[in-house]
């Protein structure tokens, strides 16, 4: 049961609202900036609808909040993990790569996962082709796949997507 993409007008409106919020932040709420801002927001929103047409995958507010909480927590783990390895005299790393089959649909969700993984503990997205994601690992003796699957689950929930059971991994 695939939902239909939003209409271009609804997408334009939603993106214009988002851009207006960003403009408000950028101009630190200066009221005199709104005249110019309104023109820029309309142009950028129109251009974004042309370049990135409405998608069937939309972020869900609750899922996005849960994703952000997960992201913040794991950012700390990732930073501390790298720091610990760097400060250990024996430099405990064992670099390598694994390739996994993603269950996320292409487009926004896969893109968000690949970028998220680059900031999560021990993983770095190297290559994404179709549903095959190659991840460079700082330490291949760690369990990499559970971490990737957890990130995948978080991204799926942010987009309101239900994932099929895992297909397995090939090294």
């Amino acid at each position, binding site marked *: 049961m695939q939902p239909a993409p939003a209409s271009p007008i609804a997408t334009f409106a939603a993106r214009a609202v988002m851009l207006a919020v960003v403009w408000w*932040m950028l101009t630190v*709420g200066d009221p005199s900036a709104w005249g110019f801002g309104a023109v820029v927001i309309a142009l950028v929103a129109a251009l974004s609808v042309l370049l990135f047409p409405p998608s069937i995958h939309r972020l869900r507010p609750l899922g996005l909040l849960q994703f952000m909480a997960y992201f913040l927590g794991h*950012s700390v783990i990732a*930073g501390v993990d*790298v*720091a610990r390895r*760097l400060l250990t005299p024996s430099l405990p790393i064992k670099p390598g790569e694994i390739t996994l089959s993603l269950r996320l649909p292409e487009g926004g969700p896969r893109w968000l996962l690949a970028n998220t993984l680059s900031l999560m503990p021990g993983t770095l*997205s190297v*290559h994404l082709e179709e549903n095959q994601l190659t991840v460079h690992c700082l330490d291949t003796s760690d369990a990499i796949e559970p971490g990737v699957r957890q990130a995948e689950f978080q991204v799926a929930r942010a987009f309101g997507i239900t994932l099929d059971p895992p297909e397995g991994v090939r090294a």
Partner: protein
Amino acid sequence: MFDGLVIAVQLVLLVAGCVFFALGSLGLFRFPDTLTRIHALTKADNLGLGFIVLALLPLAPSFAAGFKTLLIWVVALAASATSAHLVARAVRGNTSGGPRTEDDDG
């Protein structure tokens, strides 16, 4: 009293942020190749900038200014993740797509 506590927390966060930035740079020297160095830079700088942004939030003169500070962190994260991926892909491209081997002419 409360002000003093806020300043103390800000100090700790600022120092922690700078320490993580320094560690990210240390990674450039200690880690052996391009990909592992990217690991150090992206993760440590993400956290370092996050701590510094948190420390600066109480100083923001308005809500909009506070959100602007947070926006800087979000945009820096997006740039960091994207450039890390592009550099990693470029490095991998040199070895004809496969894992590095000694007899690979590229």
